[in-house]
């Protein structure tokens, strides 16, 4: 939960943050009302994670090196994959799904009539906090992997990692916003969502193992490489400065492009709604 600092110069930004916090708290209260919900969700998280881990375990049973990545390092990749997954499912996906539904049904008016920037509002409306359990478990796995690997981790690496994770989150957010914005034109986006959720699975393993065409696809079409593999590279001593610069560049570019697409779509929506 974030608290707005009183010294902020931008009142809109402060109120946006406050709004986000409010939504978060209300969302959590809502969730508590359902009997046994938290136990069930935790179980589901553990099950989901376990499936990925078992897959990794079978791989480990037959080899201790994949594309140059050692076993602990593969754990790190898996852990980051889970962390990203948790963050996406908890903070990005719910709002985006709601946004797409609103666009398709024509009920997007509520967020548009508030004095807060519409993009911020539609992006923080809905939170599925229980999915963040995946991120916690992912973090634990990352730490386990770090401890076991025989590459030293420096403070610089950790800082790079945190930066890259943040940028990765923003990248994925922008990507989903663009996907959701296509609903302004296409109306029926469910299948595309399924397509990309399917492709997301490729992030479990370092991007380098995939054949060329696939690697390009998940670097530039679905920005998984920068969201998962590159942060993993930071923690496993592989990070090239170019990658860091590239990630920053991509994030910035996506922020701009997604914002433009959003505005364009909103304009179309305003004109087309009956």
């Amino acid at each position, binding site marked *: 939960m974030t608290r707005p600092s009183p010294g902020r110069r931008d009142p809109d930004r402060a109120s946006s943050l406050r709004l986000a916090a409010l939504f978060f708290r209300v969302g959590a*209260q809502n969730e*508590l*009302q359902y*009997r*046994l919900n938290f136990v069930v969700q935790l179980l589901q998280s553990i099950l989901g994670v376990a499936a990925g881990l078992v897959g990794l375990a079978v791989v480990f049973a037959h080899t201790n090196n994949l594309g140059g990545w050692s076993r602990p390092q593969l754990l790190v990749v898996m852990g980051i994959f889970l962390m990203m997954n948790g963050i996406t499912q908890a903070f990005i996906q719910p709002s985006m799904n709601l946004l797409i539904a609103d666009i398709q049904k024509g009920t997007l008016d509520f967020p548009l009539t508030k004095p807060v920037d519409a993009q911020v509002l539609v992006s923080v409306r809905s939170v599925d906090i229980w999915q963040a359990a995946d991120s916690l478990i992912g973090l634990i796995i990352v730490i386990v992997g770090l401890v076991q690997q025989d590459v030293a981790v420096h403070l610089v690496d950790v800082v790079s990692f945190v930066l890259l994770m943040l940028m990765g989150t923003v990248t994925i957010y922008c990507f989903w916003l663009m996907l959701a914005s296509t609903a302004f034109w296409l109306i029926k986006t469910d299948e595309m969502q399924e397509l990309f959720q399917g492709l997301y699975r490729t992030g479990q393993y370092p991007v380098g193992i995939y054949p060329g065409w696939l690697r390009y696809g998940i670097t530039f079409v679905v920005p998984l490489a920068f969201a998962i593999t590159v942060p993993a590279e930071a923690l496993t001593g592989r990070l090239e400065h170019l990658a860091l610069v590239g990630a920053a560049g991509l994030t910035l570019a996506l922020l701009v492009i997604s914002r433009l697409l959003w505005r364009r779509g909103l304009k179309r929506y305003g004109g087309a709604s009956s």
Partner: protein
Amino acid sequence: MTQRPAVKVQSLRKAFDVPVRQPGLKASIGALFKRETREVVAVDELNFEVGAGEVVGFLGPNGAGKTTSLKMLAGLLHPSSGTAEVLGYTPWQRQPAYLRKMALIMGNRNQLQWDLPVLDSFELVRSIYRLPRQQFTETRDEMIALLELGPLVDKPVRNLSLGERMKAEIAGALLHLPAVLFLDEPTIGLDITMQKRIRTFVAEYNRKQGATVLLTSHYMADVQALCKRVIVIDHGTVLFDGGLQRLADEFGSTKTIVARLDVADGATLDTYGRSATNRGDGTWSIQVTRSEVAEVTGRLLAEQAVVDLTIEDPPIEDVIERVFSRGSTPA
């Protein structure tokens, strides 16, 4: 014609356990550990018999237990206690032989396939109910004619309007010529013409096939058009069971005359009936007993400058309310 009644209901009772949820965060956490329920009695000691070929209307306010009773007779619900027999079968045993002889039509339910032309859905019904070709074709063509579905049968159900869809659903529901028909709010949400069409159709079906019909409705017009006998239900018990005429006579004892008159300001029309209300811009409504209607109308027309005059029935809710307040039991 069998001597045994088509529908026989004895001491039928249905109670539900409904969870109780309190507001507030603390109560929510408490609810994680212990769930409270309370018992809601939907149907309480229902007793009646319906002979073969009868058309009976179930009247009552929302939550009276009408739909629950119908669902039990259709086999969708098990009663908490009591017995029921329809065509000699116990409905909730759901024997295929019983299912082939009955039909339940609920206003908002789709039995037809959404994406397929209506005719294709009908063919599917034929397979499900195992209807011989000859009989099926005759019945189907007759239904299509009676319900004026001709131009619609090649269209997918999703392309039909609400009224057209309802007609198609009814046709589809009766292709197997059930001997017992349960109708739950069959005309809800339809326009007047469509309501009339469906009423005529049901009456015709009853006449031709000798089918027993049980229907629930909010609309007095449905009941008046189709049912000689009504059963009034509230809070799951029968408050009245008898002819429609007797219900209207005993409990629908007043009518309202609505007249537009040129009358001097300040004048009252109390002398004409029990009470007279000025509705504004020259319109008055006068309450009279049924027996007085003709006389009062005559006097009004003779003594006043009447521009327009209508006679309104008391709304069904008022009649029923009167039944409740009298606490009547079946005669």
